[in-house]
């Protein structure tokens, strides 16, 4: 999207008349988070008289009136046209009263300095965000850029992008490179590894498609896994009702008290520390903000993993003790 705009602007600037006369102002919703900053940025970029170096003088009201005057003074014949390009346009619509947008559209509709406002956004429902008075001044010209090519076309474009152009200095290198571009891969190119290979492809696709929560569960200690299994059982019995540490500890104790499992008989504070570690990793979350009044053991929580994720993670868990694994898969009726 931005490349399109830049490309169009570049072409436009090649016309001599245009490059001499037209001023450009580039704004971005992520940077100018309120109208005050946006206004200062506009004055800075247009290099108006109240700018010295980088600093803009005056209050918001003064700057606004100065800018509006400067823009309003002109008419269609004698003043420089200004192009405003607003990136992340939807963020501007969240400013208070949409003052900036209102003023820009207002000027563009009236017979004053000729300005063009181009907004770039990812949101399709952008018009819903605009206030009535702003929407009425909008020209309702929208251009949709959709990615609608299928896979073969995608591969073709990809190959074209990665292939080196004919003017590349080292001819031999360029030929070999273009051969290897049959494979898709990411980043394995270093000085010693200049060609992409199929193995890189596999590794890269693995990197991209990892289930991150499963990775985190992979690194937990056995005690923490036991707590997660206890929570899973509680969720199955009580159908996703929130639980607290005391309930989880009770459930865990039921498992420990069976004769063979006394190796897991840890003290309650040790189990509490494991429980808090799970909370720190955001695998469990409190239902509401901690209040100072309630004890930590009784605060209601909920588990942010579902059963399939837990079972899959258990399969991959290294050296999982068999009794723990059996407990996870057991049905609960005989407890």
């Amino acid at each position, binding site marked *: 999207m*931005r490349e399109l705009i830049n490309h169009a602007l570049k072409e436009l600037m090649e016309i001599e008349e245009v490059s001499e006369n037209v001023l450009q102002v580039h704004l*971005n*919703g*992520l*940077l*100018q*988070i309120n109208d005050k*900053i946006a206004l200062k*940025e506009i004055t800075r970029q247009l290099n108006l008289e109240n700018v010295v170096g*980088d600093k803009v003088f005056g209050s918001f009201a003064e700057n606004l009136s100065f800018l509006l005057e400067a823009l309003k003074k002109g008419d269609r014949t004698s003043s420089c046209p200004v192009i405003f390009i607003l990136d992340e346009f*939807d*963020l501007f619509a969240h400013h208070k009263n949409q003052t900036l947008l209102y003023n820009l559209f207002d000027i563009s509709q009236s017979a004053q300095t000729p300005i063009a406002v181009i907004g770039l956004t*990812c*949101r399709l429902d952008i018009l819903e965000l605009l206030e009535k008075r702003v929407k009425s001044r909008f020209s309702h010209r929208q251009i949709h850029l959709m990615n609608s090519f299928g896979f073969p076309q995608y591969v073709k474009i990809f190959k074209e992008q990665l292939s080196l152009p004919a003017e590349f200095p080292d001819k031999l290198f360029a030929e070999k490179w273009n051969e290897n571009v049959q494979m898709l891969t*990411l*980043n*394995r*190119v*270093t*000085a010693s*590894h200049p060609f992409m290979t199929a193995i890189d492809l596999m590794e890269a696709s693995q*990197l*991209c498609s*990892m289930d*991150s*929560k499963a*990775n*985190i569960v*992979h*690194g*937990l*200690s*056995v*005690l923490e896994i036991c707590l997660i299994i206890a929570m899973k059982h509680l969720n199955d019995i009580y159908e996703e009702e929130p639980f*607290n540490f*005391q*309930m989880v500890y*009770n459930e865990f104790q039921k498992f420990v008290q069976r004769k063979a499992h006394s*190796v*897991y008989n*840890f*003290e309650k*504070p*040790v189990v509490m*520390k*494991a429980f808090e570690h799970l909370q*720190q*990793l*955001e695998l469990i979350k409190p239902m509401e903000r901690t209040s100072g*009044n*309630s*004890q930590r*053991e*009784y605060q209601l929580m909920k588990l942010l993993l579902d059963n399939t994720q837990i079972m899959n993670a258990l399969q991959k868990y*290294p*050296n999982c003790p068999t009794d723990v694994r059996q407990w996870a898969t057991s049905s609960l009726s005989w407890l």
Partner: protein
Amino acid sequence: MPHLENVVLCRESQVSTLRSLFGERHHFSFPSIFIYGHTASGKTYVTQTLLKTLELPHVFVNCVECFTLRLLLEQILNKLNHLSSSEDGCSTEITCETFNDFVRLFKQVTAAENLKDQTVYIVLDKAEYLRDMEANLLPGFLRLQELADRNVTVLFLSEIVWEKFRPNTGCFEPFVLYFPDYSIGNLQKILSHDHPPEYSADFYAAYINILLGVFYTVCRDLKELRHLAVLNFPKYCEPVVKGEASERDTRKLWRNIEPHLKKAMQTVYLREVSSSQWEKLQKDDTDPGQLKGLSAHTHVELPYYSKFILIAAYLASYNPARTDKRFFLKHHGKIKKTNFLKKHEKTSNHLLGPKPFPLDRLLAILYSIVDSRVAPTANIFSQITSLVTLQLLTLVGHDDQLDGPKYKCTVSLDFIRAIARWSVWLCRPGWSTVVRSWLTATSASQDGEL
């Protein structure tokens, strides 16, 4: 680089991935890289060591330290300024209040000679705190390369997975890299790496084996394990130093260290006892059972009536009001034993926590358990308020509800047992047996307290 492998153990594949991501100095790299993994999985260490060894221009910022926007941005800019300025003279500190100014100043600072053609790396450690700062900060950093139009890459290090960072309206997706947790073999290798020179590597490796055997099921955090290893090694070596056993006498060494490690799990691991206290204990060679942790000190010496008030409060919180007549009156008449507790109460008593009770009920129970006559004087009431200040009781409901305040008991059964130990001789007869049975019970049953 051969010496990098010696400094950074068990992370070869991550190091090579990072190096290929960084590429040549002047190449543009991914605009943002997100590295996640457990605590102490080496994310910070590997990134820092790699950037320092390769001598790439970088700025390292911790988001816990720089918890406001201004602190964060100013620290980045000032550190960059130090990097770029070649003279030792103090350049003025840069101030920056908004992200917009940051991008502008960033462009200026990176236009310096020695930073111009290379990729500048900004590393944000503990990046999960960025989510709580201004909303435009995270998306802005993700595409800093585009916004500032400079060769910069931002690295995010965090324990939390990327899915929890993604803002609702979408953002530029970074390259996500996972630092896997260390396997037990890796842990052994890393822990054995810092053995003191006076002992052989095998001796230390045997010690690490024992340590991992005790702690691995509970904790796999490398930092904690290293701390425990350092603290407990002198105790392990004690028989060898005293001459009672040789280095190879594994059984004797194991018998010596095992109770010590178990005690460590309950104290140093939980931070109940500081490491200096622990070391002092080892030197003094006192019985580890004597050690009092922090929690033991919460059982402060309470006045006479306060102890009873607490016990009464605990009874009131965990027994339903219907049962009071049976427990506390001398002649209560017959009550059907069956269906004693309603179905939903069976699970709720000890699992959901304490229930609120009115002040009158507390006083009624108090009168029935104390042996002597208790007058409802200001002394009693002020003790109740002191217990609230100590957070052993909490006031439920509004502060300005003057008649009928309700309280809740927020202490655990262990605490009550400790108090009961003192009060058992002072209760009304018939009650001392009850209290004594509390002391011997291992855990409260679910069918009611008494």
